[in-house]
């Protein structure tokens, strides 16, 4: 069966391998130049001190270098990121959706399923081998990224940025496995390659968008930080800020709205020749006398939850993959006859 799987899917697997090598080569070349730029500007040294290096001149220099020079120009950089984002989907559409659907379209299932190997075993071995190969390939890519992305994350996208979270981190592996299984499953159920590819595309994109936009930020209840005016406390750097709003608190600390009488009397105390800072101070002192205060309420996910969230999202996709595998297996073994 190993030979069989290889012989049947060698074109797709060779293309996958070539793409992998190409991406690794690009990462190696750009990784070296980025690391060079990073140490030349002192950005690497700053990072090594574990300081907050964002907004430093070194950071903007490195960011500019990555965006505009490391990949030739900014268009290539964008294209490279988009291509990587689409890679798991391509696997599902071009390897997964073809696997069973093509056997149907060409009638070869009647050949394959009448030999001495039971069709459930046929499916099991094929899925296991393709999954294994993709696991290795995406694992290699993920390992390469973990080296390459250190200065890039610090200089550009930030921890929670879509490219870092979705493409350069561990969750890209479950995305790939899920996409493959989604393609195999739709191909089995729909029996036609092109519709199976289309369904794979639509389902994968919808699921990714829904989880990313509506669910990911709330895997765990976010933390809330209430920051009084003129305070220097702030959420930790690299936190995922979900909302950042100005609120009015009353004496007991409850959120409220400012009565218009208070607003008017405090506004009246402001004189024209004050600086903006003085205006703000006068106004806030007046509010405090009436028992109100302005605060900034920040809702956020702390950066130390990054890997936990990666694990949660990986778990979601792996569960879906297992479900789709069970469905396909059941369909091929019982439903399809």
């Amino acid at each position, binding site marked *: 069966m190993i030979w069989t799987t290889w*012989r049947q899917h060698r*074109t797709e697997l060779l293309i996958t391998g070539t793409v992998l090598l190409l991406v690794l080569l690009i990462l190696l070349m750009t990784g070296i130049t980025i690391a060079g730029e990073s140490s030349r500007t002192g950005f690497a040294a700053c990072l090594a001190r574990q300081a907050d290096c964002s907004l430093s001149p070194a950071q903007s220099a490195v960011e500019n270098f990555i965006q505009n020079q490391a990949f030739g120009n900014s268009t290539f950089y964008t294209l490279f990121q988009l291509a990587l984002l689409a890679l798991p989907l391509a696997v599902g559409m071009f390897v997964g959706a073809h696997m069973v659907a093509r056997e149907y379209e*060409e009638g*070869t299932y*009647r*050949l394959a399923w009448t030999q*001495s*190997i039971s069709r459930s075993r046929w499916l099991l071995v094929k899925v296991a081998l393709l999954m294994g190969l993709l696991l290795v390939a995406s694992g290699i890519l993920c390992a390469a990224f973990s080296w390459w992305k250190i200065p890039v994350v610090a200089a550009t996208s930030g921890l929670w940025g879509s490219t870092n979270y979705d493409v350069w981190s561990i969750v890209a592996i479950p995305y790939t496995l899920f996409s493959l299984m989604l393609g195999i499953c739709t191909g089995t159920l729909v029996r036609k390659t092109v519709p199976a590819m289309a369904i794979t595309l639509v389902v994968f994109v919808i699921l990714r968008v829904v989880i990313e936009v509506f669910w990911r930020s709330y895997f765990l209840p976010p933390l809330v930080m209430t920051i009084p005016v003129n305070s220097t406390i702030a959420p930790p750097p690299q936190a995922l800020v979900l909302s950042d709003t100005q609120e009015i608190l009353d004496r007991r600390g409850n959120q409220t709205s400012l009565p218009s009488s208070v607003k008017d009397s405090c506004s009246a105390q402001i004189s024209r020749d004050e600086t903006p800072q003085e205006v703000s101070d006068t106004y806030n002192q007046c509010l405090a006398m009436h028992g109100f205060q302005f605060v900034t309420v920040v809702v956020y996910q702390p950066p130390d939850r990054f890997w936990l969230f990666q694990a949660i999202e990986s778990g979601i996709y792996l569960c879906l993959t297992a479900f789709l595998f069970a469905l396909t297996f059941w369909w091929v073994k*019982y439903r399809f*006859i």
Partner: protein
Amino acid sequence: MVNVLEASSLGKRYGHKWALRDCTLQIPTGYIVGLVGPNGAGKTTLLHLAMGLLKPTQGTIRTLGADPVKNARQVLSRIGFVSQEHPLYKTFTVKDMLTWGGKMNLRWSEDMALKRLEHLGIPLRQQTGRLSGGQQAQLALLLALAKQPELLVLDEPMASLDPLARHEFQLLLKDVVVEYGLTVIISSHIVSDLERFCDYLVILSASRVQISSTVDQLLQSHKLLIGSYEKAKTIAQTQTILQTRRNAEQCTLLVQTQNLIVDPAWNVQAASLEDIVLAYLAQPTVSMQNNKEEQLEAIQ
């Protein structure tokens, strides 16, 4: 003797349409069985049920004495199956296809296949998709044979072939059947394809089995009677008339009978297999079990 195929009130329905219905059938070991019927009669459905590619909606089927769905591996390893349009992996070379067969089976006689391929002049390095239709059919047959099966099942193996390729396929088939002494089930909608080498016939029409009998029995029990049309009514009372062809006062009756007809009014002749088969196919409601009243009505 064990039956290679046993079906009991077997039926397969797709949505509201029955592809095969109330099929009860025993095919004994050792014959070359022709499965005849018009397109859409349920031949492919029956064979797919026999190979466990489909699951019955009702009834049961046993192939080589076992349920082909539950005991798929035991059953399938003993059958060589050439499916309609003889599908092959089109990007594989002929050699790849043989290697594939070897990996997919426990018993595999690659030497036999190689020898025959060489004899047939089919190049091993050619992609199967680039072989001619006839060569593809021959390769598919050799793949089925390399499993060293007890039973060979061929679904319309010659339907898509031109006359020359059909002839060559028949030669190869005859050759291997004689050499290995296999039981063969071969389906076709062309009677003349089967006439020459089948010794058992199953006629499927309108999703039902009409005849399941050896060719000898079929020929013995069916006669052509030529005589005056006047007397057709009298003979219909004692014999089952399958077909009446009238030419002025003279008529030709195809009669199913167990006894000898000695009436001097009739000139009794042997019926050809094709005559018999066509008569059954032309009257989907008639079968060997039907009663005589219907026949009488048909004549009057």
